[in-house]
């Protein structure tokens, strides 16, 4: 029993970067852009988040809240910068979305590892690391009595702030798509840009904004990998495929931000399964494979089940050009 609760707790913590990546990509795809550069944007967010934290420590007076805010903002901007490059290429120059996204992944991965190494070389210890004060900012929050409730406390009130931030973001995004006027317009842009254009919606602006904000959210996901999963130390290749999992999770979540929370937890659980339910003799490599195998299975199942409403926005992957007939 304890094992299960511990697993669930760890699953939420491990699933949060997946959730953030998924949310970012859902927002992007809702505008009709298929950005395969999630992995790259997460890498950019990871290294920039770390750099932002370090910079805040150095210039804004020490560790703590300022460093955490700095990490959050800078990682968002870095992810957004990656998405801006993508947007300019695909929306303005109408480059192929798949190729541009893949290129962004390669670029972002290189960007992250390159600057991660530089940060390490420039620090006295030989590796880039935030101070303990900042590390503490990314530890689970203790809500006093609430966190001490048996089972429930562990399941609900023992996470770091980004976890709560992500869940809130997912719910906000679900509301945005379902209820808000802007969300409706955005969905129209992703489904049928020509129709949206004729209805007086500025397609280009919507695409740019959704893609850039989506990229920023992916960037925060990358920052989580660096600050929480890796404890504020730069680890070479720290994002390691989470971006790709996020792209697949968008399909699993059927483009529904609220469902993405659940998907994030399931896949987070799969990545940490080994620690809680070890089977003797089973190679750890097998456990490492599990999330990817499940991804394949999920993709197969979701492609068999055909639904008009819970499927990819129709114009996703195609660039919009008004004068084309």
């Amino acid at each position, binding site marked *: 029993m304890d094992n299960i609760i511990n697993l669930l707790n760890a699953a939420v913590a491990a699933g949060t970067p997946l959730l953030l990546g998924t949310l970012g990509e859902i927002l992007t795809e809702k505008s009709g852009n298929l950005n395969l550069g999630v992995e790259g944007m997460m890498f950019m967010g990871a290294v920039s988040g770390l750099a932002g934290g370090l910079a805040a420590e150095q210039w804004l007076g020490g560790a703590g809240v300022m460093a955490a805010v700095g990490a959050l903002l800078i990682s968002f901007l870095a992810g957004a910068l990656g998405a801006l490059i993508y947007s300019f290429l695909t929306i303005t120059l109408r480059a192929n979305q798949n190729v541009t996204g893949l290129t962004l992944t390669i670029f972002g991965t290189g960007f992250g590892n390159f600057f991660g190494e530089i940060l390490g070389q420039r620090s006295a210890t030989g590796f880039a690391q935030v101070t303990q004060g900042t590390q503490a900012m990314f530890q689970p929050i203790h809500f006093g009595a609430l966190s001490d409730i048996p089972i429930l406390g562990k399941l609900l009130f023992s996470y770091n702030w980004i976890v709560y931030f992500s869940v809130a973001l997912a719910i906000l995004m679900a509301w945005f798509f379902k*209820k*808000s*006027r*802007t969300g*409706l*317009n955005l*969905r*129209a842009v992703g*489904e*049928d840009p*020509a*129709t*949206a254009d*004729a*209805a*007086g*919606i500025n397609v280009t602006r919507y695409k740019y904004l959704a893609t850039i904000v989506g990229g920023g959210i992916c960037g925060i996901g990358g920052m989580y990998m660096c600050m929480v999963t890796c404890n504020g130390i730069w680890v070479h290749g720290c994002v390691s495929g989470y971006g790709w999992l996020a792209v697949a999770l968008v399909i699993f979540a059927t483009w529904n931000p609220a469902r993405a929370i659940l998907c994030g937890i399931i896949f987070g659980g799969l990545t940490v399964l080994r620690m809680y339910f070890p089977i003797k003799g089973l190679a750890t490599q097998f456990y490492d494979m599990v999330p990817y195998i499940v991804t394949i299975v999920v993709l197969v199942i979701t492609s068999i089940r055909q639904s*008009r*409403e819970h499927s990819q926005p*129709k114009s996703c992957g195609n660039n919009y050009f008004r004068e084309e*007939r």
Partner: protein
Amino acid sequence: MENTKTNAVEMKNVTKTFGSVVANHDVNLTLRTGEILALLGENGSGKTTLMNMLSGIYFPDHGEIYIHGKEVSIRSPKDAFALGIGMIHQHFKLVDVLTAAENIVLGLPGGATINRKLLSQKIRDISQKYGFDIDPDKKIYQMSVSEKQTVEIIKVLYRGAGILILDEPTAVLTPQETEKLFRVLRAMKDDNKAIIIITHKLHEVLSVSDRVAILRKGEYIDTVETGKATQQSLTEMMVGHSVSLSIDRPEGIPKKDCLKVHSLTCINSDGVKKLDQVSFDAFGGEILGVAGIAGSGQKELCEALTGLYPVKGGSILFHNEVDGHLVDENLVGKSPDEIIKKGISMAFVPEDRLGMGLVASLDMVDNIMLKNYRQNSGPFVDRETPKKTAERLIEELQIVTPGVHTPIRRLSGGNVQKVLLGREIECSPQLLIVAYPARGLDINSSYTVYDLLNQQKKKGVAVIFIGEDLDVLLEISDRLLVLCGGQVSGIVDPRTTSKEEIGLMMVHVGDQNKENQANLQKERKEAATHE
């Protein structure tokens, strides 16, 4: 009302050119408030271009546009909206996965959230006022074409349009739906809205409009009172010379066995019976018309005959010569390729011309090659023969195209249809299946198509003509098969049957027919045992 005195729209000497092509030349048009004006013209006569200038899609080269007496310049669809001009395009601009209400409110300014209750109420109010029938919460992809059109009209009305432009609104509707649309248009007219309806169907012009404006080859011809016009007079103004409006039906051509369909049953992927015990004969030297409400199994019938649709039961016997013997070959279960390889030549002109019939981005030569490239021996294809065929078709069928190497999608609807028909006829088939061959075509092109079909009939080809215009079906076919919900509700002689009787058969399978079908099957069985 002061508006009734001024003209809603006045266009003076409007000219628009695209490169060297003059789409509109010094066109004058007046639309009064509270009237329905029909804009009549053949394909390519510049009707849509003219209207696009009103709705802000194009900007005129010169000329003036006055709305309610004031000179305006309309530079974008937004400007047009602001002036109260709404256009309902031929291809609906709706988002499939959204509801009717969501589509209607799309892109409008307003608060952060949408008050759905109020929105639905407003839509219901508009619907009630003009007699629409719509569920605001229904998703577009679940709607029929006619419902989608209703959403488009409400969308325009919701935005407060007083001037409505409908681009060929009836092209996709059944006669009943068309009548419903016309009732709505009349209600809107009584509400002092100004309406322009673009069409080339003459009987519709006569039944719904108050005045008719005629364009021919980009030139403005005249505006006449509908009451003083006849089909004949309008046609002459539209085409520029007198045309015979009756369709030829050559009689006395010897019939020969070609196709026997027996108890054909097809079930779609959802388990719904799309064809139910369909039995009929098609003879060489005759045109068998197929009538029915859209979606009564026409598409499935065509595709089952050509091997594209899985057949659940029944047989399709094709009378053919094999090794010097005449035999009835069953085509059920054979792939289209096998059917072609067996030497059975069957031409199929699908309803979706650019989807199933031709490859839009390929040129004429390549499209012709699609049908016969397998005949080439060796690794290389022969482009010379199809090129010559293409050139001959252009000449024979008067296809208007810049050249054989122009992508098909750049051609107008009528010319695309001619290319497709021409290619199918080229392989001298024994059976020719055409689905809605005149859909979206103007009078001249339609008659060219009918002539082509009659020529094939005279050659002894069995023609199956799936159509929607009952007037045409009654005039051209030798026998008329009526489909209703996937069943054959009767095969009648069009010379002695009225439109109303067929209309009834389209919605109802009578008992008498079931008897007929049973008799036909009995006869068949007897004939089989005799052999």
